[in-house]
C-alpha cells in the first residue's frame, strides 16, 4: 500500500499508516496476554518467574 506514495493522495496513505500502527498495538497486546495471562498450565509454568517479576497477577 505504500507503493502509491508518489501519487498525490496523501490522505488515504495517512489512514493506512494509522491502520498499521493499530495493527502493531494489537500484536503487542496479544503477546502480553499470551506470555503474561494465558491460563493454560504449560504457558503459566514456562513464564511463571517472569510473570512474578513483572508483577502480573499469578496463581
Amino acid at each position: 500500500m505504500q507503493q502509491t506514495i508518489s501519487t498525490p493522495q496523501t490522505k488515504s496513505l495517512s489512514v493506512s499508516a494509522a491502520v498499521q500502527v493499530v495493527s502493531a498495538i494489537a500484536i503487542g497486546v496479544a503477546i502480553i496476554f499470551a506470555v503474561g495471562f494465558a491460563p493454560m498450565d504449560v504457558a503459566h509454568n514456562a513464564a511463571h518467574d517472569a510473570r512474578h517479576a513483572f508483577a502480573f497477577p499469578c496463581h
Partner: protein
Amino acid sequence: MILRNILLSAIVVGLFSGLLYGLFQHAQISPIIYAAEQYEVSEETPATHSHEDAKQGDHHHDAEAWAPEDGFERIAYTLGADIGIAIAYAILMISLMALHDLKSNKPKLDAMQGIAWGILAMIIFFVAPAMFGLHPEVPGTEAAALEGRQTWWTACVVLTAAGFATLYYAPLKFKAAGLLFLALPHLIGAPMPDELSFANTSPEAVSALTELSHQFYSLTAIGMVFFFVLLGSMSGFAVKRFVKLESL
C-alpha cells in the same frame, strides 16, 4: 512500511531491555522466588485438589502439566518470557509514540522524551496496578481468584493509560475526566484478600515469607524503574530514527 519498522525496532528494543531485566531477575528476583517456593505447601494430597478453596485462588496445577526443569531450563524459559514481555511492551510503546507523532500536534518524540514516556509506562503497567493495587507477590501468597485480579489489572492499565492520554491530549475542559480515569480503578478497588497471608501457615514460614515479600516488592520496583526508563528512551530513539513517518 510502518508496521514492519515498528515490529523490527520493537524486537531490538525488547531483546536488549528484556535481556537486561532478565539478567537482573536472575541475580536479584528469582532467588527470592525460589526461596519462597521452599515454603509452598505440598499439593500431593488429593484433598487439596477439591474446589472448596478455589475462590481463594489456590495455587494448584495439574500434576501432569509440563514445567521447565529447575536450573538451566527454567532460567532459559524465564529469560525468554522476560524478553517476550519486553518486546510486547516495546511494540506498544513504539506504536503509541508513532501514533503521537502522526496524529498529535505536540512536539515529536526522541530519546529524551522517551524517558518521560518510560516513566509514565512504569506508572501505567507497574505503579498503578501493582504498587497501588495487587502487590507484587512471592509464590505461596494467598490472593483473590485469579480471573478477577487479571480483569482488574487489565482495567487498571487501560484506565490509567486513558487517564494520562486525556490529561495530555484532551482540551482543557475535558482534562478533569483524565483524573477520573486515573482514580476509577482504585475507587473500585483491587480484588484483595483481607490481609497478607500465605498458604503455609506455620509461624516460621509466615515470618520468612513476609520478609521475602518485602524484598521482592522493593527489588521488582527497582528493576521496573530501570527497565521502563531504558525501554522508553530506546523506543523514543527508534521512533525518531527508524519509523519513517515524515516520508509519507
